């Protein structure tokens, strides 16, 4: 039972990080119907920026919480800037183009960013300093989970709440929902569609950066390739929950996290990544609209 609980919590942690990345996919897909392949790379750049900033700060003599917050803040700013720029360069000129074009452009952007980081930094794994603080009061309460897990879960939950509030109650959120429903109509009633799309990319990138910092401190090492696998898994999560649906992305990410955790725990750890892909293929065959997605009828 203890082993089961351990796997359950591991899956929950894993799933909540996937959720942070999956939200970016699902929001972008909801608004411009494009799989943003470069999204995983944004997450990787967030992790790298955090690593660099924290190393520089540690060198300059800072320590403790200030390093964590500064590094996270810089990582978030830079990820948002990269997300914004990627959209402007690779997707905006292709708004009217056939569906295949932005998709290929997105794949190109993903490969470009991976190799840019690899050439500018290194292709080896870099150790990531554990920035997250220890929480001694947990032991006293008799809770078995580690401090990082608690922080990851709490941060994810807070981000989700903020995102939901943002989308439900702000002007920007309203504009985003309107654009997702019908871009031309939104334009007609005075929504600045280009700006709304930019906001979507920025919000998605911020979430990805938070995920990047969290998972990098959790796992403890990063390299330029982490974005690719994480991106595919997060995409799987988004599809699993029904792409375009925000609660769906979170649900899908948790299901994926548990699937991976239990499968590696009870079956075999060699095939960790295979389970995610098999789940993706199965979902697409059995229920292409996802768990919470609505199936759309193609109109002629």
């Amino acid at each position, binding site marked *: 039972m203890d082993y089961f609980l351990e796997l359950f919590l591991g899956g929950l942690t894993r799933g909540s990080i996937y959720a942070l990345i999956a939200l970016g996919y699902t929001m972008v897909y909801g608004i411009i119907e494009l799989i943003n392949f470069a999204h995983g790379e944004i997450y990787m750049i967030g992790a790298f920026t955090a690593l*660099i900033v924290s190393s520089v700060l540690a060198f300059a003599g800072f320590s403790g919480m200030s390093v964590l917050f500064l590094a996270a803040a810089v990582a978030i700013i830079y990820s948002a800037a990269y997300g914004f720029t990627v959209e402007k360069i690779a997707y905006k000129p292709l708004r009217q183009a*056939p569906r295949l074009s932005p998709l290929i452009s997105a794949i190109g952007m993903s*490969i470009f960013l991976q190799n840019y980081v690899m050439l500018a930094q290194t292709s080896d794994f870099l150790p990531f300093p554990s920035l997250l603080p220890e929480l001694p009061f947990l032991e006293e309460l008799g809770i078995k989970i580690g401090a990082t897990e608690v922080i990851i879960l709490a941060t994810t939950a807070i981000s989700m709440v903020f995102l939901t509030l943002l989308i439900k109650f702000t002007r920007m959120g309203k504009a985003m929902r309107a654009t997702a429903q019908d871009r031309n109509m939104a334009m007609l009633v005075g929504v600045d569609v280009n700006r709304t799309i930019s906001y979507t990319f920025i919000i998605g990138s911020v979430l990805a950066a938070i995920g990047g910092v969290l998972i990098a401190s959790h796992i403890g090492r990063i390299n330029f390739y982490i974005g690719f696998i994480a991106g595919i898994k997060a995409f799987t999560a988004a599809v699993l929950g029904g792409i375009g649906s925000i609660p769906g992305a979170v649900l899908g990410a948790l299901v994926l996290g548990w699937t991976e955790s239990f499968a590696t725990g009870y079956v075999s750890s060699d095939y960790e990544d295979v389970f995610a892909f098999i789940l993706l293929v199965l979902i697409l065959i059995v229920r292409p609209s996802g768990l919470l997605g609505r199936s759309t009828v193609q109109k002629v």
Partner: protein
Amino acid sequence: MTQIRQSLVIALWFMFLTFPILVIRVNTIENIIEWRWLNMLYIGAGSFLGSFAWRYFLARKGQGTRKIAAPGGTAAAATAPPETGPDGNDLSASARSAGKSRTFPSIPEVEAVSAPADLGGVLTPAPAYADKPWLHRLLDSPRLYRPFLIALAVAALVFPFLPFASTYQINILTNALLYVMLGLGLNIVVGLAGLLHLGYVAFYAVGAYSYALLYYHFGIGFWTALPLGALLAALFGILLGFPVLRLRGDYLAIVTLGFAEITRLVLENWNEFSFGPSGIAGIPRPGLFGWEMDLHAATIYIYFLMIVLCLLTIFVVNRLQNSRIGRAWVALREDETACEAMGVNPTAAKLTAFALGSTWAGLAGVVFAAKTTFVNPASFTFLESAMILSIVVLGGMGSIVGVIIGAFILILMPEYLRAFSEYRMLLFGLIMVVMMIFRPQGIVSGVRRSYEFHRETGEKR
């Protein structure tokens, strides 16, 4: 003046953007921080100039669209409009959203082929258009391209016996030919049928491993393994195709990508079957009636073998393109719903595209295993798929000549410019983005066979 200011802002933005990653490098082992300010300068200058070029080309592309869209809209009903729409009307199914002038090209073509002369007119192949790019005009007239082709054939035949052609040189060329074959195979799936296939390398791996394993377990030779590998790859293609072909374009991309990763991970982890990451070594090179060849001779032999296979591929793909199934693929790419209404079975057409595309990957895989005499899972990563895809994208989707040129550019350039091979993948990514934005139809866009309808019998305009 505003242009300069705009570019300055962009340059500053990029300097800010690339600051942490390009300028600072942390050495975590010795705990030193490297500052590389020079990189920042390069980025600033580069993006300053780059933004000018970017705006210039975007403006030029915008002008081109307007120029061609105007006459196309009025004359579209009578004649097939220019083949190379600047926005890549030969790309995919957005024709509906793009307005009338662009929906028309597929309709006259489909009708032209199926509704022949009972209206009292005659269908004649459309003449060359004045605004066709020079390469198409060259390809259209046998008088111009024949000497060129003969020269190319002679060069290809003589090359291995020239004094400067070392084993290494021949190997590079064989490699390029291998990618021509892969590119043409992927071109069937991506270029003709419009299915974005990101897992092409899985079928390449199937081909390579089937030869390696068949030899290892049963001692089967190259010539038997060649068709067997192709067949196995085609079977895998159908196996993958059945479940995923109901999916729309972007899902298909992800599932094929996932499938390729599954294949690679299984090959890496299933030690009893595929000998894990260390792979299988000692695969024999192809034999020629039991003739023992030294390394150099064997290399030349594989080179000629590759030329023959490439010619075969070109021939088959060319015939396929203009066949019933080829036209069905193109129609499917343009508009799936309309295509279904015209009586084409989309699932069957997609499955054949998958199976045939995979066949070439399987063939190429067998040759690859024979050429390197060694296979391991590391040769079949996603980057390989991306490389083949960028060959197709650069060359021109749906265009045979384009894919050949693309393969030679992308494979030979990094080999001969050694300094530049480090930046190879960076460049591939950039090519995909830039080509999609500025020239989605590739270097040489696919030529669609088009017909014109004339009321007076046989008279040419």
